[in-house]
């Protein structure tokens, strides 16, 4: 059984290995707020079991994820690690942005990467080629990363004091929005080849982020994408969202993103 979370097997693999596949479920000590009385429900539910009792639960459904996320957050804080949760639809350019960022900033501060995908190690191999430590999490049927997967992912990662940890979530603008990983900031990536109404279509995601990177700026002359309108839509959903435009291909605008990162890197702040 896993000491981090106490839960059992999933179809998640980390660098190809099952996450404690032989584990059995154990949920530690439970606090049932059971009043011991027998309730008869005189509402219109058709299960009049005379021996039934009601157990009060009163907790957030995602409480367990939240707890693990807070544990991750503490773990990162203890190592001065700045963790980012990068989210986008598939193909917006998260991995390309990371490749360029590591090549440009790798000397300045250590960057490590957790790669989340349903399948393949393709993205981890791209990151490995830059020389940065990387662990691939394959979620199997899962459509998002959760705090549990991240906790196990970082165990296998050579994460240096003061590092920037880039957690590349599964390409999906819906599900990842609900799951706190323990990150210090959420970065949403979209590209000019997507619709400028995307923030309005996926409000939960755009509302949850601190920074929006609009990528593939080099393609702007060739596509029907109204940049000002897109930024306006993003601010309609989240007035506090910072927006930067860039191209991971040409390097245009990458400087703004690097400055944003530098301003938040613990080592730089201490220097």
């Amino acid at each position, binding site marked *: 059984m896993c000491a981090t979370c106490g839960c059992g097997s999933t179809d998640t693999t980390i660098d190809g290995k099952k996450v404690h596949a032989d584990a059995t*479920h154990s*949920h530690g000590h439970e606090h049932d707020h059971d009043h011991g009385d027998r*309730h008869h429900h005189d509402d219109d539910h058709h299960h009049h079991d005379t021996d039934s009792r009601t157990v009060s*639960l009163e907790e*957030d*459904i995602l409480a*367990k994820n939240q707890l693990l996320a807070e544990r991750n957050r503490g773990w990162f804080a203890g190592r001065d690690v700045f963790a980012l949760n990068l989210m986008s639809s598939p193909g917006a350019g998260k991995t390309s942005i990371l490749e360029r960022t590591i090549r440009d900033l790798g000397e300045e501060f250590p960057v490590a990467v957790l790669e989340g995908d349903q399948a393949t190690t393709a993205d981890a191999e791209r990151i490995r080629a830059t020389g940065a430590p990387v662990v691939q999490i394959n979620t199997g049927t899962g459509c998002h990363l959760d705090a549990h997967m991240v906790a196990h992912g970082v165990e296998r990662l050579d994460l240096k004091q003061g590092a920037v940890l880039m957690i590349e979530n599964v390409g999906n603008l819906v*599900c990842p929005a609900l*799951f706190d990983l323990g990150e210090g900031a959420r970065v949403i990536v979209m590209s000019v080849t997507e619709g400028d109404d995307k923030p309005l279509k996926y409000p939960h995601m755009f509302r949850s982020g601190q920074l929006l990177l609009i990528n593939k700026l080099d393609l702007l002359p060739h596509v029907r994408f109204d940049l000002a309108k897109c930024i306006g839509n993003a601010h309609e959903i989240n*007035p506090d969202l910072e927006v930067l435009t860039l191209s991971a291909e040409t390097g245009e605008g990458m400087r703004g993103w690097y400055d944003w990162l530098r301003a938040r890197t613990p080592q730089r702040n201490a220097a």
Partner: protein
Amino acid sequence: MHELSIAKAIVDSCVGRAEGGRIVRIRVEVGQLAAVLPDSLQFCFEICAQGTAAEGAVLEILETPGLAICEACGESILLTSPFGRCACGGRLKIVAGQELKMKDMEIA
């Protein structure tokens, strides 16, 4: 389909607290701004409950409406999506409708 993870979280938590009893009903509160589809959650719940103490249990979903208050004029506004603006132009602060909570369960 994050509803699958949510359904699994509900089943895991309830089964862990059922102390070997059979769960016949679980009540959850889902806010209309919580980005969770009740129909989808029902579907996923049935699948996740199979072979557990919650198999066959009724999942009762109480939907709570989205409510925001205008930060400028204080007006209360009902919301169906998690954004919007007050008629006065003020920013909205969401005060209800984002709940994702387990209320109680009935054990036979």
